[in-house]
């Protein structure tokens, strides 16, 4: 027994040591990518392409660009899976640069980028493709890219913990804007970059990146909202326009137990969050009686009492399991649902609901996911400019379209609507943003929003709030939403 144990431990040690050795051998290569002279790839790609390759990889590099004019993107099939092999060449293509560009004047820079891991998938690397294009377009730089994956949700807290060690360019969800600016983690945009933000985006999207001082701090790259997925066998396209029609025909899961969604009825009935543009703290959050709060609460209670309503969150699994025929969720669920439901899957913007004879639209709190520049990049001369240029490049129409083609991320650019017109998911998202959405405020005071609203939704769902007490509870929630203290 003891011998076995000893042997086991020794074996473990050996494995550990060899793992160690293996990593050590690899480390120099990883480290060498930081040296300005080496190829600007981030992953030490096994096949260092020889100089003769550029001609071969050239067409491949322009491949995403070529696909742009064709507006008939295969929207139904998940684009990311349809072209795994072909999308590799662009990655290696960018290693051609040192050979082509022995430009001694080129400014050597090391730029760290944080994007979600999906943008850097090995076989479908949007980020590196974009970097290759950017390198080609900017021979004045000799950039060593360090790409790391940090999701949009994590970015803010990681930047705030240590701004100067954070990425120079990173993607984040717009509700973190205020916090990031206060922490000194986000550079203000001006001049041609400001023009780009203003020209490329709808007013709604511009508002999502506007701080209380009226300035814009980031480039929106995609919408962030939620909408309706349904089973076409149960509902018709006509049915899904109204929630009340839907519940006469099949089961619907309404998302009222998560803070992000639970306010949808209040917002629909006229509730506001920090004013129209979502950045006026003095107005506060208005979910009270004079903003239709009672009606919304009444409708929620009424719905929960209906046997065709399941009160939950964004439970896509319920739709897959067939327990309900419609759920609400965001574009990230599209691939999963399509895989399971196939042609039966329908997508639509948020439906209307009727209360006291009046019809309102369910309204989603929506925002954007955007790319921003860390001002600490300015501590190296010329770096902040390059970073801002690259951030603007990532938010450009071409880049957004390439991202849509590779990952299915729906572009925020207002001119790209026609390009995604055949994609029901994209249209549902865009219609929701345009017709039934309010801005997810980036004010720090937004922190007060989540708990009261989520709790209200949960209390309705479990029957603690009912027809008898809802008026008091709405008042109480409204008070909490506007209570003193940050």
């Amino acid at each position, binding site marked *: 027994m003891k011998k076995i144990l000893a042997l086991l431990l020794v074996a473990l040690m050996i494995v550990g040591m060899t793992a160690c050795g293996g990593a050590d051998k690899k480390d120099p290569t990883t480290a060498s990518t930081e040296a300005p002279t080496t190829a600007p790839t981030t992953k030490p790609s096994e096949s260092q392409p020889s100089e003769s390759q550029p001609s071969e990889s050239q067409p491949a590099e322009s491949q995403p660009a070529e696909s742009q004019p064709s507006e008939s993107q295969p929207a139904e099939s998940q684009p990311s899976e349809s072209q795994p092999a072909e999308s590799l060449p662009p990655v290696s293509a960018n290693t051609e640069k040192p050979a082509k560009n022995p430009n001694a004047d080129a400014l050597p820079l090391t730029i760290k980028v944080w994007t979600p891991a999906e943008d850097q998938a090995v076989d479908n690397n949007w980020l590196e493709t974009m970097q290759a294009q950017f390198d080609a377009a900017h021979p004045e730089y000799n950039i060593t890219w360090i790409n790391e994956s940090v999701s949009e949700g994590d970015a803010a807290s990681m930047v705030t*913990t240590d701004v*100067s060690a954070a990425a120079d360019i990173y993607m984040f969800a717009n509700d973190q804007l205020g916090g990031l600016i206060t922490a000194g983690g986000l550079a203000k945009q001006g001049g041609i970059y400001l023009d780009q933000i203003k020209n490329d985006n709808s007013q709604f999207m511009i508002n999502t990146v506007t701080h209380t001082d009226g300035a814009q701090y980031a480039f929106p790259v995609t919408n962030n909202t939620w909408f309706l997925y349904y089973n076409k066998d149960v509902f018709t396209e006509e049915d899904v326009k109204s929630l009340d029609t839907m519940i006469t025909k099949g089961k619907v899961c309404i998302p009222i137990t998560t803070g992000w969604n639970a306010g949808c009825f209040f917002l629909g009935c006229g509730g506001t969050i920090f004013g129209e543009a979502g950045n006026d703290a003095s107005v506060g959050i208005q979910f009270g009686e004079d903003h239709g709060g009672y009606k919304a609460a009444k409708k929620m209670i009424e719905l929960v009492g209906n046997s065709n309503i399941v009160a939950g969150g964004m439970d896509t699994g319920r739709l897959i399991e067939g327990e309900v025929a419609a759920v609400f969720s965001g574009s990230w669920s599209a691939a999963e649902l399509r895989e399971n439901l196939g042609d039966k899957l329908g997508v639509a913007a948020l439906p209307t609901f009727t209360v006291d004879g009046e019809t309102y639209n369910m309204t989603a709190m929506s925002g954007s996911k955007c790319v921003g520049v860390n001002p600490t990049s300015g501590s190296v001369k010329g770096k902040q400019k390059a970073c801002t240029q690259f951030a603007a490049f990532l938010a450009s129409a071409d880049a957004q379209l390439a991202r849509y083609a590779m990952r299915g991320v729906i572009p925020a650019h207002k001119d790209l609507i026609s390009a995604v017109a055949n994609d029901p998911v994209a249209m549902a998202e865009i219609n929701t943003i345009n017709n039934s959405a309010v801005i997810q405020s980036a004010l720090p005071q937004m922190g007060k929003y989540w708990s009261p609203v989520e709790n209200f939704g949960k209390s309705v769902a479990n029957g603690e709030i009912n027809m008898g007490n809802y008026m008091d509870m709405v008042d109480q929630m409204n008070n909490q939403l506007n209570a003193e203290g*940050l």
Partner: protein
Amino acid sequence: MSNQLTKADGIRKRLENSNSLTAALLNGGPAVWLSCLVMGFGNIVAGQFIKGLMFFAIEVGFFYIMGTPIFVDAPSMTPHTGIEWIQLLPSLGDRVDGEIWNEDDFIYETVFGDRSQQILLYGVVFICICLAFIVIWRASVRSGYEAISNRRAGKKVLSFWGDIKALFDEKIHKLLMILPFMALIVFTVVPLVYMICMAFTNYSYSDSVPSTLNHFDWVGFDTFKQLFASGSALAEQFWSVLAWTLTWAFFATFLNFFLGTFVAIIINRPTTKLKGLWRTIMSITIAVPQFVSLLIIAKMFSDEGIIDKMLYNYGFVDESVRFMSKPVNAKVFVILINLWVGIPYTIMQVTGILKNIPADLYEAARIDGANAVQQFMNITLPYMIFVLTPYIITSFTGNINNFNVIFLLTGGGPPNMEVVSSAPAGHTDLLVTWLYNLSMQAQPKYNIAAVIGIFTFIVLAVLSLVTYRSSGSYKDEEGFK
């Protein structure tokens, strides 16, 4: 008179024999005095070249880092010397950030000022380096004195090799302690000091310009006042979290102990079959990493999870239970799940002790006609409590800081609706999870977190002082000398 003389004599004698710093300075002579300035000089004079050179190298190194700007204030890239870092400590930096519009490049460039956080950190680090240097300096003077007086007395001066050999014998404690001690000081004590300092600043997220995240100041006990002042929302929040923390620790500890003992006794019954199997099954919760087992339980018991759904489908409940989204449910739930985690530990502890209880006690009880329950209440339990008091105390303090169970199961939720403060906490948040959330969220409140940490320390210190002082093992320890 003569009495006094002998006393003075005695002191002098003791000074001569000892190698304390004062003795060294009084009796050392010029070589030792010089080695106060040039560390290691005494050793070199006495022939200990390597040791002397090592002391000298330490001195050179110290003055190098104190006088050379090697650590850089990150965004502004201003290098500071060690002395400068310490000098900046009282003000925590005055230069604030500025913004310049660069017309050519279309960018807003930031002119970076000081970062208080770095000043505090490096200030604390360099103060610690100074303290460490003083300790080494003292050691070097003494060592030089010792070597010189040995040489004077004609005794053998230890060679470097001899020193090394001594490290493996009579001075082995130095060899054994040096690495663990260094690691402890550098990566535990220094960070702790830094965090304690933070409690006396206004280092937290706020709307003020310039941001208190980058430029904070010393504020004395303001944060403490905020947290403990009666009437403020923050104080209300704090006391409610504290109350729950203590309640939780109480139930988690004692339920675990009693039920664990109960199960252990059942398994230990003479006629119970497959004793090993039962114990192994139970100990699976120790074997599987908590973050796996607790995360999976959290998913199983969530509102959309399998358990709630099965209870509903099989008609045990009329509406879903919502284990984790109702305050009372969540509290009961975490305590119950903690039983699942904790009982196996108790079983492990208790099994050995059960065997140690003298069998004749039971024999006597049986003759007196005591039944199983009476035997348990009158023999087993008192004996266990007697032996396991230290264990119970440790597990109580452990439960106060039981981060994993709460964080992985409920994440502190459900949110507390009644109190709206600038540092929100949920219904099941313990002090430690609250502290974690406050320092890891996107709008961090480091100063409040630090005060919570200090308070937790005080609670635990009082608890352990009271109990350890009276516990057997402490008294044993006293007897060690």
